């Protein structure tokens, strides 16, 4: 298969799914918070407390906090990787791979950042509103 190499020289790959880490954290947070509050209100757990704090509020805001940390970590990691890429010198043949990786990390960074805002916004509704 002599011609194979003409069209397939770029063997290095990177995990493009890291691009989705932020939105996945947002979606998981949204689903868990909705599940906790929706079920808790329907099954009449609105007035149960743990150490004086409303149980549903505690659970939901904890979930939001964990998701926020994950999104922030994902944004930070993506930014670090992008910076480290920008500091390395590449040859012309490595340029396409470098551009691709930069794209993935930049998009991942922005998505994680916006997801973090979305999670904090979601968390604020849990903290500031009456639970049921």
């Amino acid at each position: 298969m002599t011609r194979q190499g003409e069209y397939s020289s770029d063997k290095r790959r990177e995990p493009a799914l890291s691009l989705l880490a932020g939105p996945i954290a947002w979606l998981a947070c949204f689903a868990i918070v909705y599940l906790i509050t929706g079920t808790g209100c329907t099954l009449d757990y609105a007035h149960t407390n743990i150490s004086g704090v409303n149980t549903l509020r505690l659970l939901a805001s904890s979930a939001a906090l964990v998701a926020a940390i994950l999104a922030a970590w994902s944004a930070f990691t993506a930014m670090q990787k992008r910076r480290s890429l920008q500091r390395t010198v590449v040859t012309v043949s490595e340029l396409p791979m470098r551009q691709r990786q930069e794209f993935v990390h930049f998009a991942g960074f922005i998505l994680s950042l916006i997801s973090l805002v979305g999670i904090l916004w979601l968390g604020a509704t849990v903290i500031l509103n009456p639970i049921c």
Partner: protein
Amino acid sequence: MALLMRTQLIVPDNNLIGHQLYNELFTMHGTTMLFLFAVPMVEGVAIYLLPSMLGTRDLAFPRLSAFGYWCFLFGGILLYSSFLFAMVPDAGWTMYTPLSDREFSPGQGVDFWLLGITLVEVGSVTAAAEIAVSILKTRAPGMSLNRMPLFAWYMLVVAFMILFGFPPLILGDALLEIQRSFDWPFFDPTRGGDPLLWQHLFWIFGHPEVYIIFLPAAGFVSTMIATFCQRPTVGYAWLVVSAVGTGFVSFGLWVHHMFATGIPLISMSLFSAASMTVAIFAGIQVFAWLATLWLGKPVLKTPMLFVCGFIFTFVAGGLTGVMLASIPFDWQAHSSYFLVAHFHYVLIGGMVFPLFGAFYYWFPLFSGRMLSERLGQWNFWLLFTGFNVAFFPMHVSGLKGMPRRVYTYPEGTWEWENLISTLGAYLIGLSVLLFIFNVVYSMRKGAAAGRNPWRAGTLEWATPLPTPHYNHRSIAPVDDAYPLWKDPELYTRIERGDFMLADAVRGQRLMPAVHPVSGEFEFVVVQAKPDVRPLAAAIAATLAMVGFLTRMYWLCALAAGGFLVITLWWLWALPQADKGLRDAVERATGFVTGAGTKQAFGWWGTCIGLGAGASITASLFFACFYLWSTSGPWPPYSGTLLQPGLIWISTAALAFSSVSIAIGQRFPSRSMMLGTGLALAVVAALVHLFAQLKLLRDSGLPPREHVYNALIYTISGYQLLHVLIGLAMVGFTLAWLIARKHDHVRGLIAANTAVFWHYMVVVGLATNAALYFWAGLA
């Protein structure tokens, strides 16, 4: 239909068409525009455009495209045949229960809707799987993710949204049809059901649907705006981020259609917050387009006029959307004409304007001619004026209290607003007539398009016009998002056959497969030729629906069996399985014709298809959870109704079958071991089947009595359906092994069977966990 409705509303107390026909018209209008126009149109355009835009020859599964097309067509015909039998659905395009129950909709109109739309949804999901796999796997070599055309990015996101968004409604349709046909009370509150479950299932589909319609149009706009500004769209990565972000957030908005249903305040607040988050992504896109206009030198040809109309209209609709995301405002405006105005601004502004623009822009690809510019400008201005005259006054009538879906209104209320709206609607009708005339006229007498008439940068213009069926004579490697701008001679070189697969093996359809991220070339694919099997499978699926509709369940079973046989026959003739053909292609082209299992299109198709299956499963368990939490005592009886011992036997058999298949899979080169693993799995599955059926029979629970019983039969039946499909797949794989068609390097058939089987076992374990939990509660 819309013009008839508007004519009915032109004056107060009008009785031109009467309330029944009005109900039928608004039901069919909404259904047609959402299911039979918007989604098929964007998927159809994508299926037409993507291969040439991605620099290749075809999509991954051409026969699946055909199957999806026939399902769309037959589903639409089934739905519209309700007019012939005077059984037109009249419960609104949302089919809310209890209005759509048999008690309040006693005819068969709703059944026509449920079964016809289910077939259309099957077509949508298959097309989405086709589009997703194709964008990931069938691009020109070198077209990495960061060089993919923006339209392809948008369609990739939309395809996944369809795959996860449509299945909840497919489940909802099935549950409602079962309730209507067999009186199982999923939505009947007197027997433990809940009508709000329908709204949840409908809107989990319905809200993403809005973005499923909008995002492809945003892809059109991002493509056209670059061409008419003669520069790359500003913020490529930002637009990709917006598309992906919108795809995710759109699944967290559905309850904002249910603010008036009495759900807990905190739930409403969560969805209100998410509804506002989505505005961030919409805002990013609008600013990227405006920046492109600002930095380029826009030429106001007809497509560009439609882009400008889109930006104006969509922003207006988006702003009223943010207003409606506010709970108190939504309560005020709910079910009023304000809402009608909002969603028409979003849907017509967000989809119809760009679609018209896209038609003007890409018309030369399939006709070789240009549409008339003068008629096009008239078309735009009539549509833009007509649209705003028709829909802007609805904001006013809505705020003044006019409810939607009323066939008339009394004097002294909203006469002027309705009169103006109707006149605007006539203008829209006139603009559409002008467009049709322009198409007919230009097909015959339009100016010849020549080569790349708009001086665009993307690869669909690197072909002779009209585009030949094979798209590109040779497949050029790509190293830029706008290859034709980077290398203006690319067209000539492609046509001269300078690149790969210039001289295909006689009578064969060859195209490259690439790595999904890097776009690195992997192997050459021998594609299937035109085939009658997709049509036969779609006919069988339609007959199954007709059997259900006419209550001839024998026809339903027969057609389902026929569908299974046709599908297996279809798979048996995979061209990739023909070793002689593959060898011939490899000798002639110098490229390999396959790689490992996980590079194969079929593997990706199966995994993505299972994603859609997982969405139905998740929706079913959501329904179980929802009904458990809302229906009072659960179960409604005391004492042990389900035997835990049988549940354990069934679970153990399932787990064993999965292990058996996994062990067989570890020896792909030894057909005997593989076959033994499959055979043992069959035995275990039969034990599981027997235990599950005995469990149901011994429980003696009448499914009509309470939703608890109905759900036990439903989740068990759903699991048993999976087992039957799994058994058919294993039988097929065994036959494949016996016929010595198994290729241990690729081993695709066995691998797909294994992955489905493991998925089926996961569904079974979840089912048994639910049954065991419910048995424990008793």
